[in-house]
């Protein structure tokens, strides 16, 4: 795909020059196996004051492009060919970035001065040893002739602008004292204090909760309108793109697949890759029984012929949590010795029917992982009980001992969020898959070998993978290994803790489809914990929404999304960016950050400090939590 030259003599070239134009850019990596071209003949423009979204899977070369613009490529990489022309509105001439050396004074003046960047992980992007006041004001001191006091004054202003409630105090706080959202706001303040002409945002909201994501996107949009800067937004989330981008560039393996204005891209996607990418994302408006289409479909070899294990199924729910409560005590600091009590889980009751999926949704810190740990019996609840029914009647999980406990462990398996750290890098696939069998003393080595091959077939991996180590697999393949390991003991229940949130959209569809197929074939019951409502909507039958340790709303999937009643559920739903440009986010509604504080919910939902409230059924299977006050009034 070629662009017309920018300095030609056609009449339309008298139009304003783009802020940044990249032509035929190539970036090479020197690796042990030889040279690898990560970006290959890339060309696109960033117009003044507009947002350009760079979209693609991981490994498509998006981030490398951003690093090339700032010349902060890793030592192994270098720009092999092409031009990056920066037409700074504050200067008459244009700058040729690709021709500058990375450590030159000219390049350093651009970096952080005229072109700033924010990153995905706000926790690791800020130094934990320096106050944010220090780190933000530093950016100003480097690029402008200002005194230390002036710099701090400006820092305070910019902190106030990005939404810090108490900027003076914020100057002296350290990054780890802040929530993820505030940290990302601090990063934005650091990037914008020098009033750059271009902001590069590399997956700025991927690590954040949906409501926080919406607020950060809103903030970037507002600041853009104020300062007239351009934004290069790097993301894999088409929902985000649909909401904030003016122009879209789709990358695949270092090349541009398709580019153009948002309207055109979303309504008339031409390239098969882009069409495939759009079909792979779970959306709210999906039809019942509609299947996601992964970009690379994985076929499970034996699933059709797999038989359900012979066992007596329970009459009621297979797993039940009753009134679970868990408190944590925190010491706030070494030197003070003050003790705080945190109610992580407050009277949570759940029921998981056989062969169904229960989705548990909530933002980070809402207590959903604590609940799954108590169900796993990795943690004792303060009050309440977990009941498991293997067909012989419900029994309290936390009172099981000996063989009964071992059976429970066999029946309930876990799938973890991070496929990279949840597989032992020093064990082969064969060892990983057979370890559960060895622990439970099942079969001889012949039988285990066959079982391992069978498991690989089930999750659609090649049988020859048995001798390999986890590092030679991609993220999606590793997650399938994790699923295969969980299936080794023929469990009845799988607890999936954010199983796809570390994966790319394209791979996410693969794994979700695999989980669905496995459930149908093996009659598994899932407890699916996630913060992504669209994903839960795709896989779950019943959904429970958690906030601050409470379950605030619980309903069958269809009625929850058709008729969300609780204000928190409504806010969560409103904050999910839909990859459909006809359903834009309502930023104004999300600006008021009150929906995650139970004491600020409107009546009748308001919960006072320490109050548990009661669940009330409003239609069959659809329950919401109401405050005590309104219940008393009704009585």
């Amino acid at each position: 795909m070629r662009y017309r030259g920018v300095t030609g003599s056609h009449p339309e070239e008298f139009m304003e020059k783009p802020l940044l134009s990249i032509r035929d850019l190539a970036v090479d990596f020197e690796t042990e196996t030889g040279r690898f071209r990560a970006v290959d003949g890339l060309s696109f423009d960033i117009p003044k004051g507009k947002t350009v979204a760079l979209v693609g899977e991981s490994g498509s070369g998006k981030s490398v492009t951003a690093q090339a613009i700032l010349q902060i490529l890793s030592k192994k990489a270098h720009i092999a060919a092409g031009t990056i022309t920066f037409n700074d509105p504050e200067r008459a001439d244009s700058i040729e970035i690709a021709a500058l050396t990375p450590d030159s004074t000219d390049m350093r003046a651009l970096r952080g001065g005229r072109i700033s960047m924010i990153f995905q992980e706000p926790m690791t992007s800020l130094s934990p040893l320096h106050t944010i006041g220090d780190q933000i004001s530093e950016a100003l001191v480097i690029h402008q002739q200002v005194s230390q006091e002036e710099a701090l004054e400006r820092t305070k202003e910019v902190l106030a602008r990005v939404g810090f409630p108490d900027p003076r105090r914020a100057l002296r706080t350290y990054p780890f004292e802040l929530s993820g959202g505030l940290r990302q706001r601090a990063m934005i303040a650091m990037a914008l204090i020098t009033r750059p002409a271009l902001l590069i945002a590399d997956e700025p909201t991927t690590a954040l909760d949906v409501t926080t994501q919406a607020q950060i996107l809103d903030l970037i949009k507002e600041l853009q309108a104020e300062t007239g800067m351009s934004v290069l937004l790097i993301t894999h989330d088409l929902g985000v793109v649909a909401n904030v981008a003016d122009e879209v560039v789709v990358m695949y393996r270092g090349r541009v697949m398709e580019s153009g204005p948002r309207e055109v891209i979303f309504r008339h996607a031409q390239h098969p890759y882009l069409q495939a990418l759009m079909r792979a994302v779970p959306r709210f408006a999906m039809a019942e029984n509609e299947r996601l289409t992964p970009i690379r479909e994985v076929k499970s070899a034996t699933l059709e012929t797999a038989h359900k294990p012979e066992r007596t199924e329970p009459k009621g729910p297979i797993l039940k949590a009753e009134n679970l409560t868990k408190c944590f005590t925190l010491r706030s600091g070494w030197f003070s010795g003050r003790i705080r009590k945190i109610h992580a889980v407050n009277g949570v009751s759940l029921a998981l029917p056989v062969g169904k999926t229960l989705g548990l949704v909530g933002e980070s810190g809402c207590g959903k992982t604590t609940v799954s740990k108590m169900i796993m019996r990795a943690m004792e609840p303060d009050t309440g009980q977990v009941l498991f029914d293997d067909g012989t009647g419900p029994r309290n999980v936390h009172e099981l001992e000996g063989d009964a406990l071992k059976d429970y462990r066999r029946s309930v398996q876990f799938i973890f969020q991070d496929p990279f750290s949840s597989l032992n890098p020093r064990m082969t696939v064969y060892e990983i898959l057979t370890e559960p069998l060895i622990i439970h003393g099942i079969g001889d080595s012949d039988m285990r070998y066959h079982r391992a091959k069978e498991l690989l077939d089930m999750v659609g991996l090649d049988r020859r993978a048995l001798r390999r180590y986890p590092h030679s697999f991609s993220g999606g393949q590793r997650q399938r290994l994790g699923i295969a390991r969980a299936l080794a003991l023929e469990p009845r229940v799988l607890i999936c803790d954010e199983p796809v949130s570390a994966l790319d959209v394209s791979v996410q569809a693969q794994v979700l489809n695999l989980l669905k197929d496995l459930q149908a074939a093996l009659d598994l019951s899932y407890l699916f914990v996630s913060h992504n409502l669209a994903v839960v909507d795709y896989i779950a039958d019943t959904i429970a929404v958690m906030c601050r340790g409470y379950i605030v709303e619980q309903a069958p999937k269809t009625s929850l999304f058709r008729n969300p009643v609780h204000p928190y559920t409504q806010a969560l739903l409103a904050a999910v960016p839909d990859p459909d440009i006809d359903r834009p986010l309502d930023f104004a509604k999300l600006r008021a950050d009150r929906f995650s504080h139970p004491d600020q919910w409107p009546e009748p939902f308001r919960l006072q400090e320490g109050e548990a409230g009661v669940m009330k059924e409003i239609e069959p299977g659809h329950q919401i939590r109401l405050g005590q006050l309104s219940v008393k009034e009704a009585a």
Partner: protein
Amino acid sequence: MIRFLLRRFVTMLVTLLIISALVFLIIKLPPGDFLSNQIAELRAQGEADAVAKAEFLIKQYGLDKPAWEQYLVWLGVMPGQNGFSGLLQGDWGWSFEYDRPVFEVVGDALWLTLLVNIAVVIFIHLVSIPIAIYSATRQYSVGDYIATFIGYLGLATPSFLLALILLYYSNRWFGISIGGLFDARFAGQPWSWAKFQSLLAHLIVPTLVIGLAGTAAMIRRMRANLLDELGKQYYVTAKAKGLPPGRALLKYPFRMSLNPFIADIGNLLPHLVSGSVLVSLVLSLPTVGPILLSALKSQDQFLAGFILMFVAILTVFGMLVSDLLLAWLDPRIRMGGGR
């Protein structure tokens, strides 16, 4: 903060008490003691006067009492011959071997030991930190390989051997004796400018010899730490801000990589006193190391006990200092909860 310090002091005291008991127990474990061994020897030679003196000393220091009583007297919580007079009262006891109070035997040696070893520590840091930064930022370059090679060489060379070689060649080529910490003519002289100069000149070789081994280890650790930090995202942020490379490196990753070394102070302090015994012997340095060795061999119990206690106090104190320094330097420790 004050509560924390109080808690730490109480645990420190308990620790020291237990250590003192262990120290005394270990010194007492072999049968006999310095004086009874001596008396046996003197009896064999038939020297009645000396025997009488030794027997007086036995009475004086209660060596005929049970071990636990001797321990309590030594500690100063039980009245001995001269009432309460032990470590707690500042009476460090009597060295039988030197026939002088422990304080006089150890006094000078203690300060010289600290001097030599502080010089060593400064040398190690001055040499290894720049080399480590160089080889970490230019990983797998020729310079990195050379630094690494020299580092391994220094690590693998026994210090006492290097000391012997230097001793021999400096005498042969320059005709100077590098043993001791100053020229023989200054021995027993009061401090003067000339004596001080002589001391500085004699410090060079021990510093070099003891330091080289430590330098190698330090370069390797510092390089590994720094390499870890160089890959972190906040360093990319610093560079993306437009910081010059040197400032970005020193302010962020270098500062982070210092933590393990601060945590190491607790181990460093006792090493200052009891380390490098072999080198001290070879170079005949008047430091504590050789004194401790001979005191342990001859069961000179109060001398050995005092030196070991001193090392223990330094250890415990060093731990406190490094904890406080860490809390001061690293806000995560200062404000983080006791997770």
